[in-house]
């Protein structure tokens, strides 16, 4: 089957991204396809390349990135939710006069329409939020 995930919690503040990652691994282990992950609400913080957890803790961004590298899963981040919360790509940084950015590939800023597209393309859309 084709699965999509909607992740709406921030790492370290919320267990939702941890649950979503474990679920993603289990989906793939059962032979399904993961069509995409959409990050909305506080979930946009999963994309932060400045995330610096202590060394004995999982770096959630790197874990999502590894999922993308191994299985080609697109990682889409809602642009409106992200900008408000200080998650900015190189292009958006330039547009808004910031001298730095903290979102880079494989994460992509995209509109909320992408969530609707994901929902339509998938057999199952599972939401992770706490």
């Amino acid at each position: 089957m084709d699965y999509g995930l909607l992740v709406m919690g921030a790492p370290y503040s919320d267990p939702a991204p941890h649950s979503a990652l474990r679920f993603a691994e289990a989906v793939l282990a059962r032979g399904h396809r993961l069509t995409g992950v959409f990050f909305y609400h506080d979930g946009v913080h999963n994309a932060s390349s400045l995330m610096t957890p202590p060394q004995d803790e999982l770096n959630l961004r790197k874990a999502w990135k590894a999922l993308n590298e191994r299985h080609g899963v697109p990682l889409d981040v809602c642009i409106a939710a992200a900008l408000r919360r200080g998650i900015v790509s190189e292009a958006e940084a330039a547009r808004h006069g910031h001298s730095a950015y903290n979102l880079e590939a494989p994460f992509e800023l995209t509109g909320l329409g992408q969530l609707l597209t994901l929902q339509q393309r998938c057999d199952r859309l599972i939401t992770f939020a706490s």
Partner: protein
Amino acid sequence: MTLHILTTAPNSDPARQVEQALNAGDTLLLIEAAVTAALDPQLNCWTQPAYTVWLLEEDLVARGLGNIAKKHRLATVNMDGFVALTEQHEQSVTWY
């Protein structure tokens, strides 16, 4: 048939809301903070016959409630079983 996923404690607003949404034949999966429901076998979700209830094993064990769930003979699934539940239900709703 819908899979309802609850992530909050039994006395929370979302826990009350999911009860309004559950239909006969539906399935309720308790994950994250919702697994504390294992402590109280008198909770409505354990005593009604209309829908099936599962606890997510990993979250239960992490909170030290694995033995209590066993003692109360409550049904658990692991992450693989969670995926299986989503295969069986065309629709899922998460309550948080």
